[in-house]
């Protein structure tokens, strides 16, 4: 009863330790893949920040000015991100975690519970930002030949910098939960979060940052950063953090801004603790209430599916799958972010200025067409791993209903396939056709791309459905957890391999055809055979991937009966 609040963090620590000790199938594969990607990203961040700081160093005072503004700007972006992340994490750690039932009934002083949960919230909300900052600030420090004190200052700056927005976010959650029931608050947060992320992605793209890399636009850069300065900026913790670090980078100390950071962080923590002691239990109590759920009846969907020429069982499975998906905000809201990324993607093709190199534009356009095909494949693989692969696992503990019903598991799995292939194909086919239209490529390549997308759709959705049935996670808490499982990672690796081979099989013969057209010479018989062989191989490989994956998936489901 008298243990410090850190004692309450023990279960999280022990769970992580036990998870690390207990080897599961695919752990090595997952660690290699995700670790490799992480290292690549960190390396790129380090290299990028080192290069940029080095370049800015050549402009003496202007360079220093830009570096100072850049740091402030970077902290400003992450300030809002951290506040939002704190809001979402606090909802989970303070109000929705399963272990709270155990802790709230235990004789624990409310302030101990608060500190334990707040540390957890800060950790959950900010680890990604910290991981991002470490290589970035190391790059800046090394390029600027900073003294060791800079790195110590960086640590001492980051700690209060992350605490401040997370405390504000947690306070907002405390308020929100006292007004709305937690379940609804979660939906509201999920939606606003994704809208926020989608808007950020689009905003960052539409200000066309690539223009800033052109030498002639150097004055624009100063304007660009200067517009970010306003009378309010010096009052923000991002400004204090930027100033503290910049002073340290120059070999000095900025105790005023460092002091502002620490005193604000500590004050906010204490204020939040007091608010928590006053309103936490009321909020937690409300979060247990299960009000009458609000939802859309989706009668139009019923009518639409009934009009489809499919069997009664498939119709019922389709209605069920669509309703479960559309009524779960955490599921469909992910599509908003995807939509934003696609808009940015199409916008990139729209503003691509290939006419600047006229003698190459024809060739480059067609090369871009195959890059576009590859991208469409990756988009498809991403959608498949997030939405198709977890389709079987999504049945969860309710899967007994299907298994005890007089329907074959083959019908069940094929129903999952047809439910997902149609939207995936419409989406990616639309994406490819639109991007190719923007590029204005050769009609032959347009047809080849459009046909290839159909085959890729069948193969990738089939592979995801089959592997999803082969490696289901019926006890997963959400679809993202299923997507990140061994089967999900295996799917991504196989999908990438398939896409690479597919692009080679489609792109190479197409390029041969286009070169003969450019030179105005007819295709030789051998070339015609080669083109036919490559296209046939691509089609056979796709159909085989589709068919074999689905067959393996059906068998795996049938084998579940063996217990």
């Amino acid at each position, binding site marked *: 009863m008298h243990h410090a609040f850190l004692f309450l963090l023990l279960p999280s620590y022990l769970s992580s330790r036990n998870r690390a000790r207990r080897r599961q199938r695919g752990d090595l594969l997952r660690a290699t893949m995700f670790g490799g990607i992480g290292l690549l990203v960190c390396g790129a961040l380090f290299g990028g920040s080192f290069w940029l700081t080095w370049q800015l160093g050549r402009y003496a005072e202007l360079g220093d000015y830009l570096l100072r503004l850049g740091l402030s700007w970077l902290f400003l972006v992450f300030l809002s991100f951290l506040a939002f992340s704190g809001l979402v994490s606090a909802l989970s750690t303070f109000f929705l975690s399963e272990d709270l039932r155990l802790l709230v009934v235990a004789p624990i002083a409310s302030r101990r519970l608060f500190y334990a949960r707040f540390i957890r919230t800060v950790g959950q909300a900010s680890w990604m930002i910290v991981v991002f900052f470490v290589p970035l600030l190391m790059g800046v420090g090394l390029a600027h030949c900073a003294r060791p004190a800079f790195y110590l200052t960086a640590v001492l700056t980051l700690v209060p910098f992350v605490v401040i927005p997370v405390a504000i976010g947690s306070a907002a959650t405390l308020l929100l939960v006292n007004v709305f029931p937690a379940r609804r608050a979660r939906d509201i947060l999920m939606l606003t979060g994704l809208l926020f992320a989608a808007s950020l992605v689009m905003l960052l793209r539409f200000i066309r940052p690539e223009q800033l890399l052109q030498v002639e636009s150097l004055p624009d850069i100063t304007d660009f950063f200067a517009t970010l300065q306003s009378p309010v900026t010096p009052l923000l913790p991002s400004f204090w953090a930027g100033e503290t670090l910049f002073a340290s980078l120059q070999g000095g100390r900025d105790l005023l801004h460092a002091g502002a950071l620490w005193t604000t962080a500590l004050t906010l923590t204490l204020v939040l603790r007091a608010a928590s002691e006053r309103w936490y239990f009321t909020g937690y109590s409300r979060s247990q209430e299960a009000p009458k759920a609000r939802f859309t009846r989706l009668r139009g969907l019923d009518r639409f599916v009934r009009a489809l020429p499919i069997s009664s069982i498939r119709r019922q*499975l389709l209605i069920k799958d669509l309703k479960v998906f559309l009524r779960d905000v955490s599921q469909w809201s992910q599509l908003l972010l995807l939509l934003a990324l696609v808009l940015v993607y199409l916008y990139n093709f729209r503003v691509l200025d290939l006419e600047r190199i006229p003698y190459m534009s024809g060739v480059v356009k067609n090369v871009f067409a195959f890059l576009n095909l590859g991208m469409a494949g990756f988009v498809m693989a991403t959608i498949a791993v997030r939405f198709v692969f977890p389709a079987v696992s999504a049945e969860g503990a309710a899967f007994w209903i299907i298994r*005890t019903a007089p329907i074959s598991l083959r019908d069940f799995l094929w129903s999952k396939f047809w439910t997902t292939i149609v939207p995936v194909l419409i989406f990616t086919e639309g994406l490819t056709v639109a991007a190719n239209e923007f590029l204005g490529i050769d009609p032959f390549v347009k047809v080849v791309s459009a046909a290839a997308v159909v085959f890729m759709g069948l193969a990738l959705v089939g592979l995801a459905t089959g592997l999803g049935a082969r490696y289901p996670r019926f006890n997963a808490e959400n679809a993202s957890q299923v997507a990140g499982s061994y089967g999900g990672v295996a799917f991504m690796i196989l999908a990438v391999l398939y896409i690479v081979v597919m692009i080679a099989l489609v792109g190479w013969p197409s390029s041969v055809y286009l070169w003969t057209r450019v030179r105005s010479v007819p295709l030789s018989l051998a070339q015609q055979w080669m083109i036919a062989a490559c296209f046939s191989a691509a089609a056979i490989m796709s159909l085989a991937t589709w068919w074999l994956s689905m067959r393996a998936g059906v068998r795996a489901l049938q084998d579940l009966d063996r217990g």
Partner: protein
Amino acid sequence: MISLQNLVKKFGSFAAVDGVSLDVTPGEIHGFLGPNGAGKTTTMRMIAGLLKPDSGRILVNGHDLATAPEAAKASLGFIPDRPFIYEKLTAGEFLRFHAGLYGLDGDVSDRVREMLEVFELGRWEDELVESFSHGMKQRLVMSAAFLHKPQAIVVDEPMVGLDPRGARLIKQIFRRMSERGVAILMSTHTLEVAQEMSDRISIIVKGRIIARGTVDELRRMAGSQDDRLTPVFLKLTGGGGLQEIDEV
């Protein structure tokens, strides 16, 4: 109606079910009792088609579950001990989905409403399952199990999570269904319920049926004069169930 012939299921070297044979005739309520880990749930999951037996046969309404699984399942209603259902569907939508799975074509609205009324869920037809209590979910699963008018019902621990009113309702419904010729195989730890409801009782211990008969026949087997089933059960199961009942 339900016929088990020498059913065996092993997990590794452990025989969870070891040569169980059993017949539940039309209109009979057959109690299936045994201590924890005796093999009751494994047997029931095999009958429902959730587990594949290593050997032996399961016939439901004359259909072999191994060779004609769809016909056998169409004759069966299964009620598991934990009512996991799709949380984002309404009660009415769930039952219509269930009707579709069991091949009930056409307009099933009247049948859906009838079952919801029978199980006292009528006013919840258009509410999401996620807002239901455990007992309501249990009753919804039961209404689904009876929706397609099965000839046999397999029910695992029907009274768990039900309030006294709900428990009385379920007993009445089971009796009414058995009068209509539905065969019911029911596992339970509530011995009073088994005694009150069952026409015959089978007791399984360590994967084997050790006793079968009416309550009176079991009492005679155990040499017990007690009216209650509990001492009979304890005597027949070698007292292994004593600790379990004390814990309860």
